């Protein structure tokens, strides 16, 4: 029954999305003075559509929770022996379910704007919601016609197929939805951008309305990338934390675009400048998330995420991508010229620094995009190449480090016009730190130029990021400013982690007998034994080892090499010992003969700072979001009171 109800809700939601689109479009076409009869329907349609989509998704979760094996999707992707949490996660750990999750989040967001957003001209809102309806409609069509999650089997299955064992990990169960929230938040920003472009109302109010959605999306993307990087680090057992894999790039590109958009929207909100640029970034950010989804799903590029591949669905996503983004860019081509130019500013100003940030971020985005798509281009001419770190690292660094250099001073500058002389004391502090950093890096040499630059810039940036707090009352400082400080500090922390990891990591690959000891960096690791262990749906060989740091207390670590049986697959579970100054990373490999076992050991100084930094960046975003929302609510409350008083005065 739940399956049929869910399907019915999906059809109704699709119909409402169509109504939202038509009513919004007609409202747009109505003459300037009059309004269309359908116009009042736009907001209620959006709200109802959100509720119905949520209902459909909850039905799917229910079907997975009770393991209803008469539903094809459940039979294919679940198993009655799975722990409940992974049954529930199974609802979105597959193509159909994840698309339903996508459209659910998107229409819930649409419902939310329809309910609360009253700042913008009603016409812009209707155009925005029409754009939302348009995007949602494509996904409903996809679900209903080509990947119905509620399809029943003619005869119920006896047992389910199981879930990809690599995905049976609590972190990973929530990694894709996190990225989806990010992608969908960008779809809202996209709809706002299209709405504003259609009605030519590119105003500071528009930027303020759009900003919480960008911030929200950006927080989720940051957390998603950070978590995904940590997952790849401990689960894949290669000891690396970023591989420039097409799928990683697919999540990085929307993040870069969203970061740029966040900063340009700030300029638009505060100073009414960078109008067309902000619109352009709004479109680009969402296109990057669609391109990302397309690259992951179509299997057009080879990647470690091969489990997500399906070429036919790739075609469908490409068609949606072509319609949405092509349409938006066409509107942009014809309309952008008619949007009035924004305010002007001098280059030595907050806006100037933010423009540099935007240009650099866009350049890095272009570099990652070109590097990701290049193999696709050459393959069209039957030449196979693979683009990896030797391209991405140095070429993106060309733009990354100048951006960091501007970031050292940018937040200290005033809006519109400023002079470097005014902030001379801060400049001196930062300059001295850079000099000290360079000398230390030279003393430590030989280290590579990129890690060296990272080690030079990270401490200077850490100090520079808190300098905007100087001379201000910390208690009265707006939360959004705290957010900026924390996020920039996070970049310094992550940069330090990356630089230290690549400059000082030590690696050992050894074959040892039980009882023997291996050394890596300051660690001594003794292999005490290898035992078989069994989990709920896997067996493993587990190495029992004792690690001691500089001859100190011994810590037991148990890396495993796991074999799952439904479906059969091997995974490595690395063992980590985390200290404040780094991590010991141990992987147990195969038997090497004569009673020896292969061990792979790394000592990675300060590697955890990479993810602490990522979390700090997300926390900064969260502070800014909370600060902005509270400020908006206060402003609205005050406005309401003024209106109330005026009414009373009139009466």
């Amino acid at each position, binding site marked *: 029954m739940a399956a049929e109800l869910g399907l019915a809700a999906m059809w109704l939601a699709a119909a409402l999305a169509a109504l939202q689109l038509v009513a919004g479009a007609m409202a747009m076409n109505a003459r300037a003075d009059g309004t269309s009869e359908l116009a009042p329907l736009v907001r209620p349609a959006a709200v109802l559509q959100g509720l119905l989509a949520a209902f459909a998704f909850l039905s799917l979760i229910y079907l997975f929770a009770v393991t209803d094996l008469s539903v094809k999707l459940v039979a294919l992707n679940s198993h009655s022996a799975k722990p409940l949490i992974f049954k529930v996660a199974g609802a979105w750990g597959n193509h159909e379910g994840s698309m339903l999750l996508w459209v659910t989040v998107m229409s819930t967001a649409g419902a939310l704007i329809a309910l609360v957003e009253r700042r913008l001209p009603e016409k812009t809102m209707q155009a925005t919601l029409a754009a939302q309806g348009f995007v949602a409609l494509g996904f409903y069509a996809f679900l209903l016609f080509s990947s119905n999650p509620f399809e029943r089997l003619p005869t119920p299955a006896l047992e389910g197929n199981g879930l990809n064992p690599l995905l049976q990990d609590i972190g990973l169960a929530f990694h894709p939805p996190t990225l989806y929230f990010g992608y969908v938040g960008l779809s809202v920003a996209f709809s706002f951008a299209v709405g504003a472009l259609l009605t030519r109302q590119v105003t500071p109010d528009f930027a303020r309305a759009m900003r919480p959605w960008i911030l929200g999306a950006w927080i989720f993307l940051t957390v998603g990338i950070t978590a995904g990087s940590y997952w790849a680090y401990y689960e894949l057992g290669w000891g690396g934390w970023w591989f420039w894999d097409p799928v990683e790039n697919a999540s990085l590109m929307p993040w870069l675009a969203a970061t740029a958009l966040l900063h340009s929207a700030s300029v638009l909100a505060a100073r009414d400048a960078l109008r*067309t640029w902000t619109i*352009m970034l709004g*479109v*680009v950010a969402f*296109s990057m998330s669609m*391109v990302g989804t*397309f690259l992951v799903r*179509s*299997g*057009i590029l080879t990647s470690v995420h091969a489990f997500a591949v399906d*070429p036919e669905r*790739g*075609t469908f996503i*490409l068609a949606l*991508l*072509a319609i949405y*983004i*092509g349409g938006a*860019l*066409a509107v*942009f*081509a*014809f309309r*952008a*010229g*008619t949007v009035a130019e924004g305010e002007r500013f001098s280059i030595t100003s907050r806006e100037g620094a933010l423009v540099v940030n935007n240009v650099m971020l866009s350049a890095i985005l272009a570099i990652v995009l070109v590097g990701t*798509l290049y193999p*696709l*281009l050459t*393959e*069209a001419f039957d030449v196979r190449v693979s683009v990896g770190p030797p391209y991405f690292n140095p070429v993106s660094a060309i733009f990354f480090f100048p951006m960091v250099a501007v970031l050292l001073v940018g937040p200290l500058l005033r809006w519109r016009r400023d002079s470097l002389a005014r902030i001379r004391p801060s400049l001196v502090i930062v300059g001295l730190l850079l000099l000290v950093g360079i000398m230390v890096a030279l003393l430590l040499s030989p280290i590579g130029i990129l890690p060296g630059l990272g080690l030079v810039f990270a401490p200077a940036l850490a100090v520079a990021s808190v300098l905007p707090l100087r001379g201000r009352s910390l208690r009265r400082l707006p939360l959004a400013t705290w957010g900026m400080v924390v996020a920039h500090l996070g970049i310094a922390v992550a940069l330090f982690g990356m630089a230290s990891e690549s400059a000082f990591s030590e690696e050992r690959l050894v074959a040892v007998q039980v009882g023997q000891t291996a050394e890596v960096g300051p660690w001594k690791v003794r292999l005490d034994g290898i035992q078989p262990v069994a989990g709920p749906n896997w067996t493993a060989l587990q190495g029992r080892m004792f690690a001691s740091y500089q001859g100190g207390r011994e810590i037991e670590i148990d890396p495993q090499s796991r074999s799952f049986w439904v479906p059969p697959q091997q995974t490595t579970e690395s063992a980590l010992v985390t200290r404040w100054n780094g991590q010991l990373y141990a992987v147990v490999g195969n038997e090497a003969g004569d009673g020896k076992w292969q061990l792979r050991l790394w000592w990675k100084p300060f590697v955890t700072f990479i993810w602490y930094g990522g979390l700090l960046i997300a926390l900064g975003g969260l502070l800014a979001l909370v600060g902005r929302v509270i400020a908006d609510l206060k402003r609205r409350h005050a406005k309401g009171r003024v209106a109330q008083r005026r009414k009373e005065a009139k009466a």
Partner: protein
Amino acid sequence: MNRWFILPLVLFLAFVGLAGYMLTKPKDEFVESRMIGKPLPEFALPAAAVDRPGLATRDFRDGKPRLLNIWASWCIPCAAEAPQLEMLRRQGADVVSVAIRDRPEDVAGFLAQYGNPYSRIGADNLSVVQLGIGSSGVPETFVIDGQGIIRYQHIGDIRPSDVPTLLEKLQEAAK
């Protein structure tokens, strides 16, 4: 209208065109050897089984084209292609082979269970020959002509439908 505003649209359409074109192209997952058309590298492998001699480069220089099968007893697709190799042998192909990272007792067990179509079996315990001829996995089958030149590579297990192709390539190599 500012002409530059159309640039994003043009770039985007180029991407869609490229992606659409690539989606229609059949995906070729195989990494082809760069050694095709080149002579076999020099090697001399010891025997991997008691009743068959080992394999060396000079064994290929007698003017007769051969199939060179790269396999291992631990490889399940290799067991699946055994009947097809037997079929090829019966139709006159001389099949020689290299066993990759294997133990003599396992090789013997495999041959006892799935049959032995090979006239020679070399033991390649470090994958030296495998890497030397540009094979990236097991099983793979190469057509080597009478001068020891690598003429054709078949990646993966041999299905019944592949047998005529391989015989044809052998005949071509004999010319």
